[in-house]
């Protein structure tokens, strides 16, 4: 369908424009802005003190748990989109199906909650 191709051509052009604008701003800034680096200026900022130990280390695993939970729930809501569009024609069947689907995920949420995975470290 040429229609779709045209739509996505627009989308593609907008992405390109976004990237181009950032590039253009940076270029303009690069041309007119001064550049006088000094060793102190180029050190990572840590309240004016020399950093102790580097930032790139291993952090607690808890941060990743949120990412996992997010993947689960985001995939769920992506499935909800097509369901919501045609749900009027599905009737009670659609409701029950989606109810089961969500219920399984809610059990997962409750489990994560009880396991203390939802608290921040």
């Amino acid at each position, binding site marked *: 369908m040429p229609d779709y191709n045209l739509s996505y051509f627009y989308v593609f052009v907008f992405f390109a424009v976004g990237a181009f604008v950032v590039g253009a701003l940076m270029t303009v800034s690069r041309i007119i802005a001064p550049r006088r680096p000094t060793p102190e200026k180029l050190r990572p*900022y840590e309240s004016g003190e020399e950093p102790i130990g580097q*930032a*790139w280390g291993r952090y607690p695993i808890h941060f990743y748990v949120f990412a996992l939970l997010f993947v689960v729930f985001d995939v769920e809501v992506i499935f909800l989109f097509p369901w919501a569009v045609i749900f009027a024609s599905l009737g009670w069947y659609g409701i029950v199906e989606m109810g089961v689907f*969500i219920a399984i995920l809610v059990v997962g949420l409750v489990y994560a909650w009880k396991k203390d995975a939802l608290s921040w470290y």
Partner: protein
Amino acid sequence: MSPPGVLVPGPFGIDPLVWVVLRLLIAVLLVVGLIFNGALLQILMERKLQAWAQDRVGPYHVGPWGLLQTFADALKLIGKEDVRSRFTDAAFFLTAPAITFTPMVAAWVVIPFAPGVQGIDINIGLLYLSSLGAMGVLGIVIAGWASNNKYSLIGGLRSAGQLISYEVPQILSLVTVVLLAGSLQLTKIATAQPGLQLNLFILPAAFLTYFIAALAETNRTPFDLPEAESELVAGYLTEYSGMRWGTFLALTEYGNVTIVSSIMTTLWLGGWNGPLVDQAPILGVLWFTLKVYVIIVAFMWIRLTLPRFRIDQLMNFCWKVLIPLTLTNLFVTATLKVALPAPWDLIAIGILNWGLVAAFIVLIPRLQRRRLERLRERLRTERERTLAPTA
């Protein structure tokens, strides 16, 4: 209204193929202009509003009534040295602003200002917008990581946690609207709300949850933890300076605020619908802009009233309040829609939604006070125990 995107002859008998290119050009120029002007205008507006609430004058010296203040600021930012620490991950550090900025620009393509005044009306507009919203997170997390700065790192991790968590209630609220409209196409959702039959009246609970989640997604107070100034200096922005910072903060943040406001306008406030639009379609743009700016002012109002959440409270609020609330709302709305015949389903859904909103407004503070009361009680008994031997 002509089906959008199809090869149609343009005005004044312009050839369809030429018109497609011309239209694209106009759209691009308009959007870039809107982003820059929007940011300039909104920053000025925010500063003036803040000044007004805080008993002071605000920007005053540059131009008449300080109108050119943000313009001068923008010029200053462009002319400012772009300091980059030598220990950053260069490739990621330099591209991170582009990674957040580009999806923001791309999102503008589907915003329906008025019938026909829209980049392109793709039939999965809402899905497209939510996926772009998820992309913006990447840039922030990458910026936090690539800066090799501990404030940035913590800011990046916070934003990862916060933004991905609030994505869920945000999208769940959108799905609730899609249930009623039966389409993901933004123009169809807007036209599905004729007259005063706005989704705001039918689905206020979804609006409320989306509004809260949108505040979080755009890093606005009270959810501005990734860039929490008093804790993390500037969070993921700490190492950024000059125009790179300007792109990140000013352009992207305000652009994103405008986009979520446009989504709210389209989905809940009837988009361009308003008095006299049938006679003069171009009025639609005016109504749309007006509604968008009402929401933006609400954002600003919240910013100058509220303090900031703590990160664990923020997470709790999302996973333990917002997600259950949106899920319930979605499920009950769906059930009612199937169970009841045509006019009654909307009325039932409306009553239920207003009930949810009232419960939210009444119960949340009450529950909180009771919880804090219990906490104080516990502290008191604990203290009595520790003080007992000497007393």
